[in-house]
């Protein structure tokens, strides 16, 4: 690569060929404002249509202003980023965007996190000189995502991530000119489309156009209801990100403070989804070993590789996109749903209460969980195993509503018995974590030997598609790992073509796994935040006394007192499920 020398704001800069002016300026501390631009190399996501025109700057010798995000540096280029002409152009462009944007900042779900709001503040916009007609679109409220497309600024991030990274293809730019907007086909509601609710569009949307459904009020109503015993479960990835909502460094572990806050909010029992993660390992691990041994004994009807099934967005993805393969993934429910089933049977019996008296609330880094708990197979005569699923962001809002000074809380412990978990449970929160937890237990169950080193570094990392071979005392197991539905599709196509050399595959819909879920505090495209959260998860695992799921005493107690053994009839009834052939085409009412 040859080197390019140029001048930006009278400062000399040296960059590799192909670098854009935006990146060159950033490398010497000049942050040129931009809006539609977002780049996350590790997740091979790059959105720079060059459409918002906020990042225009002056290049000597050029007739009009150049978009910094798209224009590559050339030798001897002279760039000026804040001449009067540039500032006037930038302010006018932002005024134009604001002129077709509802001025509802005070009540908007994205207020305080909105990139357009921040831009308007930085530029000191006090008046919109060019007002006129505003575009209006049909509202759309799905179980997980709310679309208020009047707030759409056509940055195309959601369209790019849904089509290129997730390959689900729900969204596309529609119409032309002033009425253009990004929408599903026929501007139908999301819950009629093939949307998997992975929430990545919400994670990248710069404004309040795409936000999560808010169930905080429903939780408050349950808490104040004297007849109800309110039980809460917190997902592994929440404890690695909740702190960011209160100004803490990304990657700060706030497990103890989270539990303390939940107790102060009035939850009767504060439990941990990690417990159900260990339970999932028991069920899924056994199912995998059962298939593996039958396969090795020559039973051709056995379907390998086994695919993990704990991510609801991934489940809805293969139900829509690969309906003919719905018998390949593990039949085990996700930890959220296993927890609900156990809470409303085993635990309800312990408290000798009816299941209807219990309200199970889950705190998840994810939007698809909101949809998952509403699936009819996860309820018994109308009473859902998990009543409400809220996101990390919603929990932060609840804590603020209760005037709790989160940062100064002392640590507290989860309640027993469903609060106890192992290191294997907590690493569910990151890509590669579920399969590592499964391997830790399956190794010992299969070989009967003690597993000395529990860390399997070869399963870890951030690359979209990863392969690893694990040695089960002589028997080589090929493991595949994919995060991001686009990568999942590649593995699926191999499996469909019978070319897949894997025995087991772990798939998570969100890039980075659950730490990058659609319900987490906004990362605004900064991938380092995801990496820091991932390290925090592995730190929590390392700090745990017990590191393998089958050594969790309360899991052993659950089996001895209630379930009997993994894959027992009761286990099947409570902890396993089946999938549906969802037509690829939407059902238009």
């Amino acid at each position, binding site marked *: 690569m040859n080197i390019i020398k140029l001048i930006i704001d009278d400062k000399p800069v040296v960059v590799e060929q192909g670098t854009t002016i935006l990146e060159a300026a950033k490398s010497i501390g000049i942050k040129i404002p931009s809006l539609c631009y977002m780049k996350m190399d590790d997740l091979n996501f790059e959105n720079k249509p060059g459409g918002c025109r906020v990042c225009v700057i002056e290049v000597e010798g050029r007739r009009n202003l150049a978009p910094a995000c798209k224009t590559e540096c050339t030798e001897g280029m002279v760039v000026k980023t804040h001449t009067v002409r540039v500032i006037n152009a930038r302010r006018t462009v932002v005024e134009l965007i604001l002129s077709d944007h509802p001025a509802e900042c005070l009540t908007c779900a994205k207020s305080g996190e909105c990139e357009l709001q921040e831009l308007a503040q930085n530029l000191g916009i006090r008046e919109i000189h060019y007002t006129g007609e505003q575009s209006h679109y049909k509202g759309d409220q799905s179980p997980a995502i709310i679309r208020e497309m009047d707030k759409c600024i056509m940055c195309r991030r959601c369209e790019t991530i849904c*089509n290129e990274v997730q390959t689900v293809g729900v969204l*596309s730019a*529609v*119409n*032309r000119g002033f009425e253009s907007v990004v*929408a599903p086909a*026929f501007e139908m509601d999301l819950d009629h489309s093939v949307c998997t609710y992975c929430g990545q569009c919400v994670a990248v949307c710069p404004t309040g156009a795409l936000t999560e459904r808010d169930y905080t009020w429903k939780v408050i109503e349950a808490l104040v209801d004297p007849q109800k015993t309110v039980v809460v479960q917190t997902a592994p990835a929440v404890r690695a990100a909740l702190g960011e909502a209160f100004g803490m460094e990304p990657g700060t572990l706030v497990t103890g403070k989270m539990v303390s806050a939940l107790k102060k909010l009035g939850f009767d029992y504060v439990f941990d989804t990690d417990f159900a993660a260990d339970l999932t390992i028991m069920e899924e691990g056994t199912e995998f070993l059962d298939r593996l041994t039958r396969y090795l004994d020559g039973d051709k009807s056995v379907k390998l590789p086994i695919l993990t099934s704990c991510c609801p967005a991934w489940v809805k993805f293969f139900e829509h996109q690969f309906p003919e393969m719905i018998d390949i993934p593990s039949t085990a429910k996700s930890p959220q749903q296993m927890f609900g089933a156990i809470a409303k049977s085993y635990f309800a019996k312990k408290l000798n209460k009816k299941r209807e008296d219990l309200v199970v609330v889950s705190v998840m880094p994810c939007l698809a969980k909101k949809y998952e708990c509403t699936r009819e197979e996860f309820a018994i005569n109308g009473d859902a195993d998990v009543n409400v699923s809220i996101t990390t962001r919603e929990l932060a809002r609840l804590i603020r509503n209760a005037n709790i000074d989160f940062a100064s809380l002392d640590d507290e412990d989860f309640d027993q018995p469903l609060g106890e978990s192992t290191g294997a449970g907590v690493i569910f929160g990151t890509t590669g974590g579920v399969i590592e937890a499964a391997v830790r237990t399956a190794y010992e169950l299969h070989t009967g030997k003690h597993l000395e080193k529990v860390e399997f570094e070869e399963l870890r990392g951030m690359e979209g598609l990863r392969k690893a071979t694990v040695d089960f005392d002589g028997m080589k197991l090929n493991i595949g790992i994919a995060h991001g539905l686009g990568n999942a599709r590649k593995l699926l196509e191999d499996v469909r073509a019978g070319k897949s050399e894997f025995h087991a595959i772990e798939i998570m819909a969100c890039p980075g796994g659950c730490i990058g879920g659609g319900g987490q505090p906004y990362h605004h495209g900064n991938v380092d935040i995801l990496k820091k959260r991932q390290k925090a998860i592995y730190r929590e695992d390392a700090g745990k006394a017990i590191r393998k799921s089958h050594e969790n005493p309360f899991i052993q107690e659950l089996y001895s007192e209630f379930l009997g053994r993994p894959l027992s009839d009761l286990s099947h009834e409570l902890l396993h499920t089946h999938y549906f052939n969802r037509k690829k*085409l939407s059902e*238009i009412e």
Partner: protein
Amino acid sequence: MAKVKIPVNKVQELRVICKKFNNDPGELINVLHEAQNLLGYLPAEVQEIVAEELNVSVAHVYGVVTFYSFFSMLPKGKHPISICMGTACYVRGAEKVLEEFKRRLDIKVGETTPDGKFSLSCLRCVGACGLAPVITIGERVYGRVSPEDVKKILDEY
């Protein structure tokens, strides 16, 4: 969007069209042209079949259909009337002719008369500026149209 039932033979013809363009997503616009000629318009179900055959998302097809003014998701009239609103025709009074058509047919631009006989739309430029103002009904081109002629033209159908 009411689900439109497309007769089975038409669905078959539609798949044949897609195969004729060997299901190449790059040929989407040519496929949509032939589909619209086949059915007169492009309802949601047609777009879904095209999306399936060309292996692209339905949203992508809908995005293309709503981008180009030639494609319509509503059935056009038996005799689609298009008024040329190019500069030459505008300068020679095309607006008055349009007003006259609107008044007589009592529909707005983009709508179809209740009996489905006429639909009214504006065209950017037919390219016969010598005959400004120009209107087309189906394939036929009428030149030098004045508001007074509108009645005579409509009576021809």
